[in-house]
C-alpha cells in the first residue's frame, strides 16, 4: 500500500515522457521524408477554415462586451474616451490569443483525440504501421503544422473582429466616435504588444495538436476509452493553454518592459 503513491507518480512521469517523445517525433518529422503535404492542407482546411465561424463570433462578442464593461468603469473616472485603447490592448495581448486557443482546443483537440482514438481502438493505427507508414508522420505531424499555422491566423482574425466588435458597441451604444475609437485602438499598440499576441498562438497551437494527438494515439478501452481521451484532451489542452499564457506573458513583460 505504501508503494501506491510511488507507482502513481511513476505512471504520471511515464505519461509525460511518452507525451514528450511523441511531440518531439511529431515536430522532428518536419525534417524527414516523406512530408504529407496533402494531409497538411486537409487538416489546415478542417482546423482553420472550419474554426473560422466560432472564432469570428467569439472574437466579436468578446470585443463588444469588453467595450461595454470597460466603458462603464472608465466613465467613473471620466476616461470613457480611452475605451478603444483598453479593448485593443486586451484583445491583442491576452483575450484574442487565449480565447481563440480555447475555442480551437474545444473543437479540434477533442476532434483529434476522438478521431485518432477511434483509429487506435479499431487497429487502424496498427494497420497503418503494418502497411509501412509511420502514423506519427502521417497523422501527427500534419496536425501540428496545420494547427500552429492556422491558429496564428485565426488569432489575427479574432483580434481584428474583436476590435470591430468593441467599435460597434462604442459607436452604437456608448456614444464614442468611431474615428476616436479606432485611432485610440491603433495608437496605443506597440511592437511588443503585437509580438506578445503573435507568439502565444504558436505555443497554443503546439499544445492543442500534441495533446489531442497524444490522447488519441494512446487511447485504450474501446469506445469508452475514446470518450475519456476526448474529455482529457480538451481539459489538459485548455489548462495548459492558460498556464502557458501566463508564462509567456511573464517572460515577454520581463523582456520588453510591457
Amino acid at each position: 500500500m505504501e508503494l501506491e503513491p510511488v507507482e502513481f507518480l511513476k505512471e504520471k512521469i511515464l505519461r509525460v515522457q511518452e507525451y514528450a517523445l511523441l511531440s518531439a517525433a511529431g515536430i522532428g518529422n518536419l525534417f524527414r521524408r516523406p512530408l504529407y503535404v496533402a494531409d497538411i492542407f486537409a487538416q489546415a482546411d478542417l482546423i482553420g477554415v472550419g474554426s473560422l465561424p466560432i472564432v469570428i463570433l467569439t472574437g466579436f462578442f468578446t470585443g463588444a462586451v469588453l467595450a461595454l464593461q470597460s466603458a462603464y468603469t472608465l466613465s467613473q473616472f471620466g476616461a470613457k474616451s480611452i475605451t478603444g485603447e483598453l479593448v485593443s490592448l486586451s484583445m491583442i495581448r491576452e483575450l484574442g490569443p487565449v480565447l481563440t486557443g480555447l475555442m480551437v482546443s474545444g473543437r479540434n483537440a477533442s476532434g483529434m483525440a476522438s478521431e485518432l482514438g477511434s483509429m487506435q481502438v479499431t487497429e487502424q493505427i496498427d494497420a497503418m504501421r503494418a502497411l509501412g507508414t509511420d502514423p506519427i508522420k502521417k497523422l501527427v505531424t500534419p496536425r501540428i503544422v496545420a494547427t500552429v499555422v492556422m491558429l496564428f491566423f485565426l488569432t489575427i482574425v479574432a483580434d481584428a473582429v474583436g476590435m470591430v466588435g468593441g467599435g460597434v458597441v462604442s459607436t452604437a451604444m456608448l456614444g464614442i466616435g468611431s474615428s476616436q475609437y479606432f485611432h485610440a485602438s491603433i495608437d496605443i499598440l506597440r511592437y511588443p504588444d503585437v509580438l506578445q499576441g503573435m507568439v502565444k498562438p504558436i505555443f497554443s497551437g503546439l499544445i492543442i495538436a500534441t495533446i489531442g494527438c497524444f490522447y488519441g494515439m494512446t487511447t485504450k478501452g474501446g469506445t469508452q476509452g475514446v470518450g475519456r481521451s476526448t474529455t482529457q484532451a480538451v481539459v489538459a489542452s485548455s489548462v495548459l493553454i492558460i498556464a502557458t499564457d501566463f508564462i509567456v506573458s511573464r517572460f515577454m513583460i520581463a523582456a520588453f518592459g510591457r
Partner: protein
Amino acid sequence: MTPLNAPSAAAPQNTAPDADPILAFQHVSLGFDGKLILNNINFTMQHGETRILLGPAGCGKSLLLKLANGLLSPDSGTVRLFGKDLGSLLRDDLYSLRANIGMVFQEGALFDSLSVRENVAYRLREENRDEEYIEAKVREVLQFVELEHAIDLLPSQISGGMRRRVAIARAIITQPALLLYDSPTGGLDPITSATIIELIIKERDIFGGTSLLVTHRLQDAFSLATHTFNATTQQMERIPNRGLAPNTKFLVLNNTQMVFDGGLEDLLRSSDPFLRAFLA
C-alpha cells in the same frame, strides 16, 4: 502493367530458397503487467511455407503475429525477419521492411474514412505510383477477391465478410514476401468463413507466397491443409487420396508455450493430452 503475381519492387533481395528463413523466433518471451504471455517461443518459417497457428482464445496468438512484423517488441529473445533482427533496426528501416509484409487484421482494420478503392490502393499511393497503374492494380486485386463491384463503397457500407476480403486485397496488392492473417474468419458465419478460406488457399496456390495464419477454428485450419485451389474450376477442392497440401504446417500455442510444431498427420497422431483435448 505489372501482373499481380510479379514480385514487388520493394521485395527483399534474399528470397532465394536457400537464403535465411523468412521468419525466425528465437527464445522469444513477452509479458504484460508482470504476467508472462509468451515464454521461450522458437520456430522458423521457410520460403513458400504456410503456417497455421492454433491455440485457445487469449493464449497470445495475435501478439505473436504482432511480434512477427515488429508492431510489438519482445521482452527477451530475437525475432528475425528476412534475416534481419527486428530489435536492431532503426524505425525507418523497420517501416521499409514492413513494405514486404501484408497483414490482415482480426476485424479487417480498414481505414473507415476511405473507400474500398482507397483502402486497397493505400500502399501503392505510399509508393507514389501513377494513377493509371494504381487503378489497374486495384481493379485486378479486387477481381481476385471478387469485389470489384464494391470499389466505390465505404467500409461501413459492406458486410463483415466483404471487409475481410477487402483487407486481404489490401494486403496482397504488392505481392509481399510474407502474409500474416490474424483470425481472418473470426466472427463470420460458416459460409462466409469458407469463402475467406478459399481465398487464402487461392492466394497460397496461385502465388505460392509465405504466410502465417492465426485461427482458433479447427475446421478452417484443416481445410487449409487438405484443400487446394483448382484454377480451372475456380474453386477449392479436397486433395485426392486424403493428400495434404505441401508446405502447410501447424504451430500450437498453449499456456505461454509452443506445444506443437509440425504437419497435420503428426498433429492428429500426437499423444499430448492438451492436443488431444483441443482437437477433440
